[in-house]
């Protein structure tokens, strides 16, 4: 018998269609961690809705959560698509899956604006430095100097998805690595409980087009250069915080999310405050100079910012998409009032007697 979680589901209940991505593709590992995270958090797949753009990464949602609704939309437009849809039922949790081309190139505009709006959405960028689906062109996140067999050497500076997210006012910014499943899973869990937009930029190697060990998005380089900010643990609201070993003060930070769940950050080599946006930007800048892959929860803002649903003043007692004619069509008397007061009228014979 397969193991079941607290709501009686097995891991298989979180699976999707068999993957058609290349064997070893980082995107597959991301899917496994999403599935594991939701299974462990006892989330009903029916309470989740998936969105994506176009790319190998954007195909990925097909291969998980077949019991969830999903919409694989247009290249770069996932944030907009998800915005319109999620407004319809705010009891659902959205997961958006995108690529580095999808987000940082054709969809950069929507990415920046969905950050401003703080749409409650787990926004995963499966970042491999190339356009996988169109066969390996440079993506905007590729490092300067990356050499690919068919495309020569990249002469341009890369876009850093996390830096853009920070500058754009994101309330949750994390970076992880498909080859670091434990950290990735914890970040997915935390993102799921974040009350707003949560960006996770995941280095997700493309084994077919960009996996030479010297390339920054390769498994080899990422493994050798990963520099985690902290060890991460996520504790759901219903569980007591039990720390496996006693700690010295300053060795760990406890971040409480809006629903009572907790993220525990255990110090690795120095104390890092993920509630300081400046510190996050500085840490990223330093990581460029040190040529390391900085991973972990870069930034989180747990209070003070309204999410899009709050800004729009949406009802919490009933999803918009279940409202009926009685709730949506104003009464005939309203139209009479508008006709009478807001419109200018022609000759009035009753008054004129004409």
């Amino acid at each position, binding site marked *: 018998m397969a193991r079941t979680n607290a709501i009686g589901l097995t891991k298989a209940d979180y699976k999707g269609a068999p993957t058609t991505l290349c064997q070893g593709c980082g995107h597959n590992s991301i899917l496994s961690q999403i599935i594991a995270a939701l299974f462990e958090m006892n989330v009903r797949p029916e309470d989740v809705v998936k969105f994506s753009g176009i790319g190998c990464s954007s195909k990925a949602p097909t291969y998980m959560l077949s019991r969830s609704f999903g*919409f694989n939309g*247009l290249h770069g437009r996932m944030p*907009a698509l*998800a915005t*319109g849809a999620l407004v*319809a039922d705010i009891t659902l949790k959205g997961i958006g899956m995108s690529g580095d081309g999808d987000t940082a190139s054709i969809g950069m505009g929507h990415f920046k604006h969905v950050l401003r709006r703080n749409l409650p959405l787990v926004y995963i960028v499966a970042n491999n430095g190339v356009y996988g689906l169109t066969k390996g062109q440079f993506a905007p996140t590729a490092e300067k100097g990356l050499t690919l067999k068919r495309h020569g050497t990249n002469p341009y500076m890369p876009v850093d998805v996390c830096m853009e997210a920070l500058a754009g006012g994101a309330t949750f910014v994390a970076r992880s690595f498909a080859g670091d499943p434990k950290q990735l899973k914890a970040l997915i869990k935390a993102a799921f409980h974040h009350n707003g937009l949560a960006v996770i930029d995941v280095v997700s190697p493309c084994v077919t087009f960009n996996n030479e060990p010297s390339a920054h998005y390769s498994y080899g380089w990422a493994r050798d250069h990963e520099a985690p900010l902290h060890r991460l643990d996520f504790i759901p609201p219903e569980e007591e915080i039990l720390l496996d070993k006693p700690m010295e003060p300053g060795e760990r930070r406890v971040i409480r999310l809006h629903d009572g769940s907790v993220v525990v950050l255990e110090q690795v080599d120095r104390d890092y405050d993920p509630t300081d946006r400046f510190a996050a930007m500085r840490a990223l800048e330093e990581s460029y100079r040190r040529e390391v892959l900085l991973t972990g929860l870069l930034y989180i803002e747990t209070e003070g910012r309204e999410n899009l649903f709050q800004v729009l003043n949406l009802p919490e007692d009933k999803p918009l998409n279940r409202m009926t004619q009685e709730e*949506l069509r104003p009464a005939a008397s309203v139209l009479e009032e508008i006709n009478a007061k807001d419109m200018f009228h*022609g000759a009035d014979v009753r008054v004129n007697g004409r």
Partner: protein
Amino acid sequence: MALKPAPEPASAPAAREVVNDFSITVATINGTGSQTSNLTILRALFRMGIPVSGKNIFPSNIQGLPTWYTIRVNKHGFLARRDEHEIVIAMNPATVHDDMNKVVPGGVFLYADHIRPQGLREDVIAYSMPVNRLARESGAPPRLRDYVANMVYVGVLAYLLGIDLEAIRAALDFHFRGKAKAVELNDSVVRAAFRWAEEHLEKRDPYRVAPMEATQGLILSDGNTAAALGALFGGVQFVSWYPITPSTDLAETLEHYLRRYRVRPDGKHTFAVIQAEDELAAINMAIGAGWAGLRAMTATSGPGLSLMTEAIGLAYYAEVPVVVWDVQRVGPSTGLPTRTQQGDILFIHFASHGDTEHILLFPANINEAFEFGWRAFDIAERLQAPVFVMSDLDLGMNHWMGQPFAYPDQDMDRGKVLWEEDLERWEQEKGVPWGRYLDVDGDGIPYRTVMGNRRPGASYFTRGTGHDEYARYTEDPEVWHRMVHRIKKKYRLGRKYLPRPVEDGPGTEVGIIAYGTTDAAMPEARYLLEHKGIATDYLRIRALPFHDEVGDFLARHRAVYVVEANRDGQMAMLLRMHYPQWATRIHSVARTDGLPLTATFIADSIAGQEG
């Protein structure tokens, strides 16, 4: 409020009187507040019972460039734009000579005395007005002087034409929503100017207005307001949009009304309006919302639609209901952003790559703008398809007479949506497991579930890539062929949900086809043609794809003239394509110059082709 009979002009009227049949054009500078004065004249005439229309010919500019406002007064109700200007009011020094030259011989040229042109025309009746002096004497604070200066011509014109001062007062009351100070100030300027004219002007022209009863029970509105109200009563739930003339007011007015009438007592909204980052986002948001079961719409114009085309194909093929208002302006490119055209017909009908064919609705007046405003949602949800409402700048931004808006006479049609409790019953009834794109009813319309439906088996994965009846990815040639033909069937059979054409005529051998705002010129054009000995039948298309009546109309007439405001005769092309057997009898009467078509142009073109 009682309307007094119009005051008699001080001097004896000229021998040849022209009553309630002329056009007034006001030439001003954009951004000087003349719109208030122009609307005041329009409304006052309307309140006097006289049929009127107002056309704002304005530049793409916020302040400083010339702008014209033309009011047509016509006792027969012929309200299309005309090329002739009987009365020109000149307030703009930059255009004063051109403006004077617009006046028909024997017409009136009324100008502000500080912009007196060099050499007044001999063949027009010129009056000058001491605009600045009267504005100064009005007691208005200096910053308001430009605005009240425009009220001077209202007062002088009221004297010359006999416009009822009480009707003007009513128009000001309406405009300033009863703000007493503003009403008083403007009204006092109008009255002062009227008195000045009474004392100083000797009326030498033949033009006059007289009260009628032709507008009783009618309202004045612009099409964008009508459309917004239609959407409100259509139960719109989601609006995403990006500002662009001439559609901006539609979205802004809609949000205004939603905030007024769709907020629950607990302060929560039953709608969401998002001003998107661009039209790509606007349409993709609306598609997301439509997919998720909301009545979703966007409003835009040609440039926005150009950006939206990829998403339109997605909505077509993934079968997502969404309503798109195209308030057309002149293209291609930025074109003439503040002028009107019916130029997007072919583009929108076939928008997107691959095999598509879209539903277009053509409102011709404010009442149809309102009706299609709510009906478009019913059609979109019934047919699970994008629906385009093809308004234009002329309808959207100008003031039109119409009936008070009529409450929808049908319940909202949410189409084939299955919720938790519906699914089980459905599967028992139909005897098959539910599949998103299964055509079980034979009408090409499948059943859909929407996100939030928690019943196991209710979910599906939507994609713009090839999919089968169960929404599963496939590249199978047979399945692709089957799916796109099933969609085609849905559109063919779905025509019954679209507004049918409107027909009129005695049953002659010459037919006219028009659509949208060109309808406004049609009664007059047909009247002119009749006087030239050409009796006509008329069919007005209100939707694409064509209803069968359109083919029947072509079959019944020796010659059919298709009237439209674009260069190449786009609807004529579509008709020839759909009805090759009648192609040689279809003649195009098309013109685009940024202005609404005139009846004279239409009648002359048809008479010319009839030879």
